[in-house]
């Protein structure tokens, strides 16, 4: 029963925490992600995306800043279209906290040996020779699923939408925010 409660809280903490509290906690995780990501060569170059590349501290935070702004703004605009009354701070706080699972990938980056890029271009299958890299890829799947689940619940609770309207609006908003973050990162970073 207790395990079920903990799992439920990890999948949807927003019944308990939202607004400024969620934003403060989420920002802590995001700053930590930026810091650790810069040293573990993990770049979050998309709302639900990450790559192993050598980046500076500034680049790491710029990527995360653009990701967060795209996610929050697009979800907010979508919320304005499909919902009647909600607070911006709830979208801001819950979406920021929804990024928290990616911290695990920032940490995992320290234990990952990236195969040589020039070798990967010659033979892409060489990535499977790095066990730690394969583990990182494998770990990224549940982390991304977890983060998307959090984003979905954040959107649901912040905007009070239900059913197919929620699902369709969320999917469109997520895809748009991911595409927008990619474009902005390409143009400005």
């Amino acid at each position, binding site marked *: 029963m207790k395990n079920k409660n903990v799992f439920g809280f990890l999948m949807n903490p*927003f*019944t*308990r*925490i*939202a*607004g400024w509290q*969620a934003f403060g906690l989420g920002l802590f995780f995001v700053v930590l992600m930026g810091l650790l990501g810069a040293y573990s060569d993990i770049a979050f170059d998309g709302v639900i995306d990450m790559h192993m590349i050598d980046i500076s501290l500034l680049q790491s935070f710029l990527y995360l800043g653009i990701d967060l702004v795209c996610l929050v703004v697009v979800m907010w605009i979508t919320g304005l279209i499909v919902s009647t009354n*909600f*607070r911006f701070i*709830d979208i801001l706080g819950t979406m920021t906290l929804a990024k928290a699972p990616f911290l695990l990938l920032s940490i995992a980056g320290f234990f990952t040996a990236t195969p040589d890029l020039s070798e990967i271009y010659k033979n892409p299958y060489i990535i499977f020779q790095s066990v730690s890299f394969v583990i990182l890829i494998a770990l990224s799947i549940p982390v991304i699923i977890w983060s998307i689940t959090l984003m979905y619940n954040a959107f649901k*609770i*912040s905007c*009070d939408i239900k059913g197919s309207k929620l699902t369709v609006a969320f999917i469109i908003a997520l895809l748009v925010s991911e595409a927008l973050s990619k474009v902005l990162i390409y143009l400005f970073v």
Partner: protein
Amino acid sequence: MLPTYCPSCHAQLKVECLKCESCGTEVNGSYDLPVLALLSEDDQQFILRFVKNSGSLKEMASQMKLSYPTVRNLLNDIIHKINSYETSL
């Protein structure tokens, strides 16, 4: 908890008899249950808490250990139920 729906056919119950325990007077008729009585016990407790907190959802969220949007969503659900009960009356 006051029963509000028929246990047999689930139609909405009406009040037919009210009795005074002090003098034994009985008032008979066919009275609709008030809308608030049609709500579940949890919803009624929510409304009482809302009134006692002077309508402050922030205070309620703090007492119920829930987030503000969660409490607001619960209120929205109750508003929706009340509107549907009033429409059906």
